[in-house]
Each structure stands twice: as C-alpha cells, then as structure tokens.
C-alpha cells in the first residue's frame, strides 16, 4: 500500500500544477494597532522630553546624593536580601512542618501563617518598632525560666549566656528585617508547600527505598524538584519585598531610599521629580532581579521541559 502511493506520487511529477500567485493574508487590525501605539508613544516621549516639571537634572542630582545612595544600599537592597533570606528559609521550614506527620508542628506552622498573613506589613513594622517595651530588662539568652528554677532550688545568680538590649533589637534595620522576614515567611510557606506537593509521591518513595533518611529525601530529592515551582513566585515575592522596604518608615527607619528622597523633595519643594527618581531606582533594580530570576529558573528547570540541559549537550554533540 505504502509503495503503491509512493510510485503514484513520483510518476506524475511532470504535470504538477505551476506555482500559484499567493497573496499574504492581510492583517488590517495590526496596522491600526501599530498606528495607535506609535501616536501614544510619540506623545509619551514628547511629554518626557519637553515637560518642564520633570526637571531631569534635579532628578539625577537627587539620585546621586550620598544619603540617598546609602539608603538605597542599606535600607532597600540589604533589607530586601536579609528579609528574603529569613523569609525563604523560614517559609521552607514552615512548609516542611506543615506537611509533617507531627500534628503539633503542623498546627504551629498553620498558626504562624495565620498570624503573620493577617497583619498588614505597615502595622507589623510599626509594632516591631515598639516591641522593646515588652522586654525592659533586655532579651536574655540562656536557660528559660532560670530565675524561677534558681529561686526554687535556693541558689543565687543567673544562668544567662548574654543579654541584648531590647531597644537595640527592636529598632532600625534589625526590627525591619525581623518584621518583613517573618511576614514573608508566612507567604513563602504557602509557596514552598505548593512546590513540595507538586513533586510526585513516587520520587520520595524511590529515595526512601534507596535507604535515604527523611531529611535527605527532602533535601536531595524533593526540594530540588520543588524549586522549579517555588522559584517563579519567589521572584515575584522578592520584587514585592524590594518595594515593601519603603514601608520601613513605620519602624521608623530613615536610612532608606524613599524616605531620603522625600526629605530632599520637601527641602526643595520638588515632590514630583523625587517620585520620578524613586521610580527609576525601583525600575532599575527590578530589571536586574528579573534577569537573576531567569537564570535561577533555568538552573532549577534542568531535566524538565524540552530544552536540552546544558550538561548533556557536549556529550550529545561529541558522541552519538
């Protein structure tokens, strides 16, 4: 049957019809859209270039002030990085707790998520700044309830390793990182949980059957695969965190980008150029973060999808 069709196709090749005069499909809608967008873009450029209110030289001068750069590096970038470390670490821990067979751990993780998701970040940060009042003798590290035990045993002294001044902990950047980090952990917990649940149960079974302990199964087999699902929303969260550092003023932290820009703006009565300067900073960092996210996604996407993983390419090219 197959050879039959082949010969029949090969034979009448000579009396094939000639080329047709194909007319490309017309897309009038596209041209209309291009025209409309071109006009709008021209209007935007015209606005940006000619409108005096932008005061571009003032914008760049404000962006270059040392206290602004300092606020950007410490208050924005550093706090974003540290809060995300607390958030991602805490979130993965909470997700593992939530999914464990231990009802106490699962309940605590649920309670944590409930609490920190319920409180607006601005109010949480404001509260963090005032927590020092709870620990007027400082925050001590050592044996819990040591003074009660010592009193009960009839001894004297204390069993404390060191004591931190609460007013130093719950102030400034530290309070900001704790507040933003704990709040982030609550959201990351849900993201990490979704990621862990997305990994097929057979993966954990195969790892267990090889004799891996449950911790190793999680670290070496489940989490690396869950990362593929966890990374994209975490990129989103990081970008959101970058912008939420502008809430640090609630703690209060003044060594932060937007506060510093605003204070320049109010000194010179120039509020609009200051908003533009802040927007430019956030746009720049978000762009960098998006590039970073691309590479992370590519790394954790190894072995999935149709793109050949990098490690396999040289072997394929050289050998078979």
């Amino acid at each position, binding site marked *: 049957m197959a050879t039959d069709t082949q010969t029949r196709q090969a034979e009448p090749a000579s009396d094939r019809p000639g080329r047709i005069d194909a007319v490309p499909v017309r897309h009038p809608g596209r041209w209309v859209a291009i025209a409309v967008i071109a006009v709008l873009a021209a209007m935007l450029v015209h606005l940006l270039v000619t409108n005096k209110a932008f005061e571009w030289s003032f914008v760049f001068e404000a962006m270059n002030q040392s206290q602004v750069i300092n606020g950007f590096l410490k208050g924005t970038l550093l706090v974003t990085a540290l809060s995300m470390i607390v958030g991602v670490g805490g979130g993965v821990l909470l997700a593992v707790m939530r999914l464990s067979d231990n009802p106490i751990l699962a309940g605590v993780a649920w309670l944590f998520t409930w609490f920190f998701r319920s409180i607006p970040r601005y109010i949480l940060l404001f509260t963090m700044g005032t927590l020092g009042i709870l620990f007027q003798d400082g925050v001590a590290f050592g044996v819990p309830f040591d003074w009660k035990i010592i009193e009960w045993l009839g001894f004297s002294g204390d069993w404390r390793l060191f004591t931190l001044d609460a007013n130093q902990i719950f102030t400034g950047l530290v309070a900001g990182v704790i507040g933003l980090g704990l709040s982030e952990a609550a959201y990351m917990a849900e993201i990490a949980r979704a990621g862990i649940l997305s990994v*097929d149960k*057979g*993966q954990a*079974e*195969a*790892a*267990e*059957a*090889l*004799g*891996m*302990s449950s911790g*190793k199964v999680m670290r*070496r*087999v489940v989490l*690396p*695969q869950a990362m*593929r699902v966890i990374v994209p929303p975490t990129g989103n969260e990081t970008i959101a965190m970058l912008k939420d550092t502008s809430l640090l003023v609630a703690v209060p932290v003044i060594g932060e980008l937007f506060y510093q820009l605003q204070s320049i703006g109010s000194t010179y009565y120039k509020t609009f150029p200051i908003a533009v300067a802040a927007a430019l900073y956030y746009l720049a960092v978000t762009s960098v973060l998006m590039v970073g996210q691309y590479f992370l996604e590519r790394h*954790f996407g*190894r*072995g*999935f*999808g149709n793109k*050949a*993983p990098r*490690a*396999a390419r040289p*072997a394929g090219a050289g*050998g*078979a």
Partner: protein
Amino acid sequence: MALVEIKNLHKSFGSNHVLRGIDFSVEQGEVVCVIGPSGSGKSTLLRCVNLLEKPQQGQVFVRGEDITDPDCHLDAARQQIGMVFQQFNLFPHLSALANCTIAQRTVLKRSPAEADRVARANLERVGLSDKIDAFPAQLSGGQQQRVAIARALSMDPALMLFDEPTSALDPELVGDVLTVMRKLALEGMTMLVVTHEMAFAREVADRVAFMDGGVIVEQGPPADVIGDPREERTRTFLRRVLDPTHVEPT
C-alpha cells in the same frame, strides 16, 4: 535462614482489606514471580517488603531482622533491598549517572570516585554506557527503567524488588528490560518480581506465587503453577491472561 520471611501479614487501606494473612518467604538466590489479577494485593505485598507500606499486623524479616519492629533501623534494612517501580521514578533533575551515585554518596558514604566507578559499571551492565550524561526526560521508557535498575544495583543490594517493571512500557521496549532482568537472575541475584509477563515468569522464575483476594492461592515451580495449576482460581486467571498467541508451542 530465608533472606525474606513474611509472617501473617495484614494490610488494609481504610475498609479495604488488601492483604489477608500472608505467609511467604524468599531464599537467597531465588527468583520468585508473583502473579495474579489486579487488586489482588501483589504490589502491596511487594511494597511491604521494604515497608513503603506499613502493615497493620504481621512481621517482615529481612535476614532475620524484624523490620516492622519500630526499633529497627529501617533505612539500613532498605539499603539491602533494591526496588524498581512501574513508573521508574527516576530523579528527573539528575543525569543517569547522578541518579546512580546520589544514594551511594549520601547513604553509603562512598567517595565520589568510588560511587562513579560503581555507577558506570552498573550502567554498562544494563547496556546504557552511552547514556551516562543523559537526563531521564531524554531517555525512552525502556532506557529509563534500565537506569532505574542500575540505580538500585549501585547500592549492592541483597534482594531486588520489581513492581510490574514492564507494565508502563511500549510493547517493543519490554524486551530490553526483561533481557536485563534475565541476566540478573542468571548472575544469581535474589529477585521478587510482580509481573504480568507469564513467559518471563515461566522461563526465569524458580517459584511462582499466584495471589488473589489478598491471599496466596498457590505457589510452586512455574511448570506447576502456570503449566498445570491445581486451583480453579489460578486456572481462570491464566485462561484470561494467556492470550493463545503468546503461548510458546513447546
């Protein structure tokens, strides 16, 4: 002493009583095939041998050690038992080689060089030395299942469990996997195989066990259980399974 000994094993999922008192053993060097209709409990029995399923009642002894005892070091027992799954369950984020080294490194604490050597040897044993750097998604089902066999073998197990290893494969790929399993059997590996491949069971198994309704209905040499079954239930099952075109005219 039997390598695996199962005593009065019961397992239910909710109200579904899947295993109803299994007494069963596997001797060192023996190849045992478990056959039976779907839902008869064969896979559950296999999964109880390395405690991927926790039985409600009964005991499982591996080399005389009761692994159902909560004090037993289960991970250590599992190291001696290789398992091959119906759905392969290769780690998709790791290359074929890394699939075979990860447990050697993390569980047996072998050096990278040693793990690498063992993994390469086992990938060669299953005929895949040219696919060492491939990721699972780049391999056919048959190749993936052979990597899974190499992964289990890399732990130097005393016993290999096969849970319907060819059921998820395209028919033309089944042969490669069965060839590897036949070779393993000839090398003297102790194997417990849940399978629907009657020709394989008849040829390779030292003993065939027929399960139905959560019990072992009959067991013995393949010539008896498959060739001349005593029980009516076995005969009914075999009549349904043994498509006449698959029977070897011997």
